[in-house]
């Protein structure tokens, strides 16, 4: 006989939380039967705030929507506003934007590999990957002036140029990174700890992925070959050859391998862009007053398809600005993946979609058969998963 579900509210301020979120699970013994998400704890009203600021102020506001995919947001913002203005940016600016976007993808995916290793208890791999990630962070600081929130894009082009000495340093850094990322992919494929915790876990069949409108590596790990860079090219992606990576196993291991291969592709894209960097200016002047119009912009952020929509009314401030982050599109899929799995698999499956808000805060458990209710913190859930697999 089913017991009624209970909502146990808890505040977003808690020492255990990285980024707040709430899932309500219904469990039967070790199996998850149902899950209800509740998000919005980090909702800051950016869309409303964007209506009160000029376009150039909005560029920096929108950039701060996320720390890890900040460049994707500014690329999309400039794509939308430049389309309404009707300006084309110089070729050199397109290539520089591409280089920074791909450096950000490497940084984001290597961050994820480390976090996924942390979720399954493999802290050694976590530390090694994050040590090698420092190479990318230092390169980004060299090129743009900051390790996160690069602010390299502006309306009409880019703000800083890449001098030849910087280009050499980037290539040297990429050589080291390529060796390391190849090694970490090998670990992903051969290390028993990783395989046991990620192979055949968190299955999302292709028809479910399409029906629930999943995006990004989650979709590509189910064999669907959709990538905004190839399907709807923007900046310099129509001039640079690269491969869209898919794997067919539909589990967390496929998502790990998709991201490792995407890092390899990003390194190749950056090398090609640096070798073929066209000359010329890096930006054009744009007016402050934007004519009336509307536009839709799409960009492949590290986590998936990012979409922005803007409507302008002829003044210096937008009428409406909408942004939809890729993680929102993946939440229905993650709920589907969790049902039918073990409680011990919850951390890695939630981390598998690379959520832009940390998944593992508190979970309220309701045991359907025993009528027991208890709450665990993220730390406790992670430890439970590690112990459960060690006993197996």
């Amino acid at each position, binding site marked *: 006989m089913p017991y009624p579900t209970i909502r146990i509210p808890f505040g977003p301020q808690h020492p255990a939380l990285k980024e707040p979120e709430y899932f309500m699970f219904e469990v039967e013994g070790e199996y998850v039967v149902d899950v209800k998400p509740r998000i919005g704890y980090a909702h800051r009203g950016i869309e409303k705030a964007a209506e009160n600021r000029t376009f150039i*102020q909005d560029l920096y506001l929108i950039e701060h929507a996320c720390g890890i995919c900040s460049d994707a947001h500014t690329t999309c913002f400039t794509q939308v506003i430049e389309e309404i203005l009707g300006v084309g940016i110089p070729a050199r600016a397109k290539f520089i934007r591409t280089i920074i976007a791909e450096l950000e993808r490497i940084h984001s995916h290597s961050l994820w590999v480390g976090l996924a290793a942390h979720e399954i208890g493999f802290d050694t791999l976590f530390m090694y990957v994050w040590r090698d990630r420092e190479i990318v962070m230092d390169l980004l600081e*060299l090129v743009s002036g*900051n390790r996160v929130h690069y602010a390299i894009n502006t309306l009409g082009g880019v703000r800083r140029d890449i001098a030849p000495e910087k280009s050499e340093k980037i290539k040297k850094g990429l050589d080291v990174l390529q060796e390391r990322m190849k090694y970490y992919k090998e*670990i992903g494929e051969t290390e028993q700890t990783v395989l046991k915790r990620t192979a055949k876990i968190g299955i999302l069949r292709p028809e479910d992925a399409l029906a629930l409108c999943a995006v990004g590596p989650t979709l590509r790990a189910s064999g669907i070959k959709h990538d905004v860079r190839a399907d709807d090219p923007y900046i310099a992606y129509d001039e640079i050859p690269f491969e869209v990576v898919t794997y067919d196993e539909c589990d967390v291991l496929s998502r790990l391998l998709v991201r490792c291969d995407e890092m390899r592709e990003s390194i190749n894209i950056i090398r090609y862009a640096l070798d073929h960097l066209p000359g010329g200016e890096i930006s054009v002047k744009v007016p402050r007053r934007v004519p009336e119009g509307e536009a839709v912009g799409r960009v492949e952020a590290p986590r998936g398809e990012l979409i922005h929509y803007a409507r302008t009314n002829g003044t210096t401030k937008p009428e409406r600005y909408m942004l939809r982050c890729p993680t929102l599109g993946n939440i229905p899929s993650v709920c589907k993946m969790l049902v039918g799995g073990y409680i011990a698999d919850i951390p890695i499956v939630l981390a598998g979609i690379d959520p832009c808000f940390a998944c593992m805060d508190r979970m309220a458990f309701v045991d359907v058969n025993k009528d027991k209710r208890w709450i665990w913190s993220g730390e406790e859930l992670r430890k439970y998963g590690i112990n459960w697999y060690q006993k197996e």
Partner: protein
Amino acid sequence: MAMVKELLRHIFRKPVTLKYPFEKSKPAEGMRGRPIWDMERCVGCELCFRDCPSGAIEMIGRGSEAEFKHHLDRCIFCGRCEEVCPTNAIKMTEDYELASYDRAEMIIDFKRTRNESI
């Protein structure tokens, strides 16, 4: 046990963690730290004040009499003020150690020096 070789190689190496504040890593050239105003060059055009995304720049007076208060706790170090200044009066330094226990230290004044004629 795929990581065993890697781990054995690292046994005799020292850790990569820098013991900040005793060991500091030098920021890259062009790193965006705290902005400073050169009041000799400033003409008080208000462009930095208008374009600041977070309202960190406070102007007192206008034109050639303009003076500034820069709020470090609101600044996002985006560099827009440096980019838009027509006389290159603003420069982003590499100063990033800005934390303090006192709110009053978060406001930096940039005043004009007046030449006293005798």
